């Protein structure tokens, strides 16, 4: 057993057989917002942050994350009653359709904006093209990122 720190909370996890973070988080920690899509780092549905870096949890062994700070979709709100600017923009644009890929999309977008608060179109494409959306909501995702970017910059200059 190892200890994982997820969204500032400690969880005991059985890391045997090289279980990837994805399955430890979903089945052992019961945080099901992080999704299984492909299992080979092709679709981005399982994206989480490990020490702030966007990480594909489906190919990352849980054992490698011991002692690191893991953040999932359940942990991005500043507090229980306040949405992250990215979530607000997502709702404003009515972005999700089926919604299955959206945790991963949002985690990639949050990581992008934390590293680069005012990304260009090309930078958004580069950061987001690892996340597949079969409902094809790329136009809305892109627009939502731009809206969130404006809000985040405003907040940071206050």
């Amino acid at each position, binding site marked *: 057993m190892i200890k994982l720190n997820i969204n500032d909370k400690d969880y005991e996890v059985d890391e*045997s*057989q090289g*279980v*990837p973070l994805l*399955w430890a988080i*979903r*089945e*052992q920690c*019961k*945080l*099901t*917002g*992080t*999704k*299984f*899509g*492909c*299992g*080979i780092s*092709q*679709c981005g*549905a399982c994206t989480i942050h490990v020490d702030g870096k966007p990480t594909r949890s489906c190919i990352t062994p849980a054992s490698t994350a011991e002692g690191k700070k893991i953040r*999932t*979709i*359940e942990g991005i*709100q500043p507090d229980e009653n306040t*949405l992250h600017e990215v*979530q607000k923009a*997502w*709702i404003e644009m*009515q*972005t*999700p*359709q*089926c*919604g*299955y*890929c*959206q*945790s991963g999309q*949002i985690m990639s977008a949050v990581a992008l904006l934390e590293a680069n608060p005012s990304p260009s179109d090309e930078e*958004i*494409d*580069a950061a*987001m*093209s*690892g*996340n*597949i*959306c*079969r*409902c*094809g*909501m*790329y*136009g*809305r*995702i*892109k627009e939502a990122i731009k809206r969130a970017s404006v809000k985040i910059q405003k907040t940071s200059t206050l």
Partner: protein
Amino acid sequence: MKKWTRRAFIGAGVLAGGTLVLGIAIRPGNRSSKVADVIAKDGESVLNIWLKIAKDNTVTAIIPHSEMGQGVHTALAMMLAEELDADWSQIRFEEAPAIKEYANHAVAKGFLGGGPDVPKFLNETIDGVFLTAVKSLNLQITGGSASVRFTGQYGMRVAGAAARAMLVQAAAKKWGVADEEITVEKGLISHASSGQSASFGEMAPEAAKIKKPSDPILKTEKDFSIIGTSQPRFDIPEKVNGKAKFGIDVDVPNMKYATVAASPVFGGKLKSIDTSIEGKNGVIKVINLGNAAAVIADGYWQAKMAMASMNLDFDSGENAQINQEEIIDRYRREMDEVLANDELEIHHESGDVNAEFDQAATIVEGEYRVPFLAHATMEPLNCTVWVKGEEAEVWCGSQNPLGVAGAVAEELDIKQENVQVHNQLLGGGFGRRSETDIIIQATKIAKEVNYPVKLIWSREEDMQHDVYRELGISRMKAALDESGNPLAYQSQFIFRHHPTEAADIPYDVPNQQIRFSTPSSHVPWGNWRSVDHSTHGFYSESFVDEMAHGAKEDPLMFRKRLTKTEPRFQAVLDLVKEKSNWGSELPQNWGRGVAVHKSFGTYVAEVAEVEVDNSGKVKVHRVVCAADPGFAIHPDSFKAQMESGIIYGLAATMTGEITIKDGAVAQSNFHDYPVTRMMDSPKIETYIINSGNDPGGAGEPSTPIIAPAVTNAIFAATGVRIRELPIKNNSLGREGGLG
């Protein structure tokens, strides 16, 4: 079968606590179900229950369709709220339980009957044969772009209007005034001259005592205040915080996990299975399912690792000899043979095409081909089943929850009412989640144990054991006179599923011959977004483009000229022409292509702007979409569906291809079945025409024509006509490019 001659009517009743329930009841019938106890009297049975009005003034719409992101729960609740004159903030929804009373009568009637007038449907006698057919077919299906078209129009709106009429009559009676003097606005029932008013909740118990109207009057478009607006969707908040529950997220106490590996070759059998790994590394049980191996373990990963460690020996049978090239050759050879032997089935025939071919000034000919396609929904298939003796519970995201109940009951040989289906959100459907193959497989596994089992397919299993859009071929030929007028149109295609009108063309061509045949195939077929429209959209809209070029006419104006008697085609073509700046100059190596098609009651025209660089790389920059769905109930969701259908179709256009190698699917995951990503996505603009016709579908109609819009644009840019999809298999390089 006995003919049903009694009337369908609106049934109502009161639940404990004073909640008014309203539904559609029918007599005679058996009073059997839970809802019937509430709203039907002796000798009546309930067809559908549509709404509840509680004392706390909330109105709950009960919706017999699955949410897969198309916003159906919101749109249908809006239709009900509109007729009720409810305040939108008091509206809630519940997804209907998967019991037979929710067999989607309105959907079936819409499909089988071709769309009756709204109130008339309730007035008319219900044909018992038809009703029995609906129930036995287990129709509670979300598909065919049908939810708004049928359930919304014939169910939700009628229920809302009926409830409103009952509330008004109850108020009039209580206040001793005339019905006509009562107004209802935003959930408040008022009588102006006496100054009296009441909320829905206050009046609901009284309203339940009112005789139910059988033909409530529906609003006309000019009175709409909720329909036609874009209310925020109910399902979105939980889709941005990780709380939305999909089938794969279900957590049942004491649940274990399973995965499977089916014979890679369709039709193959598992020879034997080694159970020696049971009890080790979290593995609980290994099962031979006949055509697949299953492993039950403490977690998905343990099941997957165990599966990978086993040497599975399949008897692949004769299908293992089948390869992609052989399939194409055989289909083509069979097309030659049925033509030579005069064994083609006729889809449509008018006039005499051969006479025109003999004397035409210009003949245009081409053979088109499209590949097998997988659905590749984001959420891999999964299903959780708990078998408890003569009862079972099922958790899944299905487009057809009643079908799920039926399939589980049949597999376990138990009564269908003993199967409880908990339908979850669907992580993409596109037709795939209308099937019950994984449901049956999960049931076979779960019946071996006495605890709940969640079966999850790997992406590889999902890709290689899909039900596929067929590999299709169409041979097209047209005759034009000296002025470029088409005299004859002929197509010979393979496989006709549905909707059958997909093979029709809207163009005014006096002589037409559209015929088909059905070669044998070992690859399982399934509904793929827009179904037969996905193939015929490409065939006919590419070929009409060839005809336009044969006539030396602008492709958009050619289409307009040949649809003069079709005002809705004219309108979408005019709008897409204007919004795309059709005819204006484009950069070098760019081209514009147009396509237009009607499917699921919605008319769509698309113009694609495409760049083909010297190496042959294709980039779709912009897509302009003009659509006439009759009336868009929720314009933003409608636009989202057009965008979605275009991107889904674009993946199939550019790279989508399943091929068969040694009888099995050669692709396995997104690396070899690439789909559209953000960097490949065009800017999409959608413009809606509310023509005042019956609402058409939204989920599918933009998909069929993105392929021809793009390939027609490639022709405009390069002069190369693409007749085989996907585009990646074609050489477009020039000037020493790689191509």
